[in-house]
């Protein structure tokens, strides 16, 4: 009888151990995927914003101080002037986002291309973002409506840019755990928000 109890106890302990190991394996795999996603979006975000940040810093470079540096200002697109190649002639740089349907092949339904063009020649995809939002403020800190009317473009003093990047593919969630309005995968997200002067010539 006692031997039988030993066997039963051993089976219980063994089962518990097996369960713990299986759980740990599942957890490790899921966490690894989530962490990989986190790291990937951080890398994607920093590489994308490096270019944007560099060009935003030079808005209005080489432009007479009286001339507005921003030509078109909308909530997801902007066109500004800057002599980016330092050849003495002012260039027109445009940023915009594409439609989500352009990257329909990825499971993430929010990702879209961030597009850039110089002097209206050849639009390039410079990154994949899930949010590219622009807000414009006057010198007194008042928020301007978007699209900013052309008569008020010269009032833009600072530009606030928000960029969010999510991974295109993420580990799927257990369908029974997904509530209405929630996403069906564990998407990682990384945010970047920066305020930039509309022109470095605008110093008080």
């Amino acid at each position, binding site marked *: 009888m006692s031997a039988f109890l030993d*066997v039963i106890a051993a089976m219980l302990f063994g089962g518990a151990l097996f369960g713990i190991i299986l759980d740990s394996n599942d957890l490790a795999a899921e*966490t690894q995927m989530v962490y990989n996603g986190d*790291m990937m979006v951080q890398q994607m975000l920093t590489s994308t914003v490096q270019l944007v940040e560099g060009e935003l*810093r030079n808005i209005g470079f080489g432009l007479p101080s009286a001339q507005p540096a921003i030509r078109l200002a909308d909530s997801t697109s902007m066109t500004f002037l800057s002599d980016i190649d330092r050849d003495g002639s002012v260039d027109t740089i445009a940023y915009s986002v594409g439609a989500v349907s352009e990257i329909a092949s990825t499971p993430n339904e929010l990702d879209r291309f961030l597009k850039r063009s110089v002097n209206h020649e050849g639009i390039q995809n410079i990154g994949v973002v899930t949010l590219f939002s622009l807000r414009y403020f006057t010198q007194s800190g008042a928020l301007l409506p978007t699209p900013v009317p052309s008569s008020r473009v010269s009032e833009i*003093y600072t530009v606030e840019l928000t960029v969010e990047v999510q991974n295109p593919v993420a580990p799927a969630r257990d369908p029974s755990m997904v509530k209405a309005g929630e996403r069906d995968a564990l998407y990682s997200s*990384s945010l970047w928000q*920066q305020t930039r*002067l509309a022109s470095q010539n605008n*110093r*008080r």
Partner: protein
Amino acid sequence: MLGNSIEDGDFMTTGQTMLTLGAFMFLTTILMNFYQVLGGTGDTIQNGQDGILATTIATSYKEIARGLAFDEFSDTCSSAIRNVTALTSPLHLRREAGEDSLAAFNDIDDLNGFEVEKQAIGSVVRYHTRFTVYYVDPDNIDHYSSVQTFTKRLDMKTWRVYPPVLDPTQIDTMRTTMVMGYFHFN
């Protein structure tokens, strides 16, 4: 022959019990290490995101500072300042009455001693920033100057205040520096 076989019908010996307990302790140690590594990796990833947010916040303040006048006096003076003593005394580098927010500041001195808290967009994480402005030696911007010069330095410390950092040994303050020189367009 080993004792306590099933045929013998004996209970587990003390040795076996100890062996089982040892195995459990070993397994527990492995599991604890495993979860610790997982948690540590999560912290590293979170620190990366914190660093990105803190950098964007500090850069935004730096950009706002770039848009400010070099000095209270140069903000209102239309001609070039040639005499360095015309600038604000190092002891009076502070904001003037009525200048209570970043939007109200007109010169970089206003940032001296200013502290501000900002919540990162899309999260509950809040960052605190402390500003210090002082004159520096133009030949060595790391040297504080007790007299007026045409060069000022802005030091910023940005750190997370919410959620607070649990590990006190973790470095969470980002230091940023900007040097501003006086210039005038004729």
